């Protein structure tokens, strides 16, 4: 493993978004992963529609909450193409699902994986390197007040409530940490990112880890 790795350095991570007053973090994390893996495959990096996932992923509750795994299962079963954000913009509320013809350009997924990497965070780092940014679900209650630094306390494993995207890690300092892209705008945390201690399954970051294949 390298001491430091961040998919942002490869220019395959879209900018931090803002979910506003919408509990759609699960959709932001999934769409972020699809955008990045598509770009890693050599396609142009493009913002894809989060609103499409919020409106159309019927096994979830849109802005009232959902699960990344359900969204991935839906994307995988239906082979729905995610269209560009500009085609189906975010409006921070539930809406009716818009359907597009099969000739419409977009990105569909081929498969996904979901594993528990607790006690295996080095393996999780290898998965990040080989598969792309990873969707994780964490306990983010104390993130309400986070300004910066490495999160090491005040959160638990087994109490996940918020979906985010891990884009990299840094093991060069005394406290290795994961780089975690959030969806609360770039004024939150470290330019929209949280740094979460690597090792010890801090905030349950390794409990439920998903990757997409495009």
């Amino acid at each position, binding site marked *: 493993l390298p001491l430091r790795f961040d998919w942002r350095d490869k220019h395959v991570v879209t900018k931090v978004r803002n979910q506003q007053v919408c509990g759609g973090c699960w959709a932001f994390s999934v769409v972020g992963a699809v955008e990045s893996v598509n770009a890693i495959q050599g396609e142009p990096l493009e913002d894809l529609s989060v609103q499409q996932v919020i409106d159309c992923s019927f096994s979830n509750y849109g802005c009232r909450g959902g699960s990344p795994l359900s969204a991935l299962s839906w994307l995988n079963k239906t082979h729905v193409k995610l269209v560009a954000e500009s085609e189906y913009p975010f409006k921070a509320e539930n809406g009716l699902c818009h359907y597009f013809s099969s000739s419409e350009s977009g990105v569909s997924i081929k498969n996904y994986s979901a594993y528990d990497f607790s006690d295996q965070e080095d393996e999780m780092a290898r998965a990040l390197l080989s598969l792309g940014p990873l969707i994780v679900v964490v306990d983010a209650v104390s993130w309400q*007040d986070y300004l910066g*630094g490495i999160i090491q306390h005040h959160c638990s494993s087994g109490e996940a409530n918020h979906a985010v995207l891990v884009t990299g890690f840094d093991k060069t300092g005394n406290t290795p940490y994961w780089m975690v892209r959030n969806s609360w705008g770039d004024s939150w945390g470290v330019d929209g990112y949280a740094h979460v201690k690597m090792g010890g399954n801090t905030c349950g970051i390794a409990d439920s880890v998903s990757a997409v294949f495009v």
Partner: protein
Amino acid sequence: TWPPSRERGAAAFRESLNRHRYLNSFRHENSTAFYGINQFSYLFPEEFKALYLGSKTFRSPRYPTKGQTSILNVS
């Protein structure tokens, strides 16, 4: 109700300041996270949870470590 009243927002903000003191009391080195006023400081924690923490947990199988072999079902 959303948005909260000014009075409710002010009460949540005062509670946030107390919470920041507690959260920052665990800082033993410079790299440790620090907590303070941000865009969510006017929300009570239960409001914050309801509005922003919208993901359910899901259980996944343990990642199979390389070299792991299954054990035969023998007596």
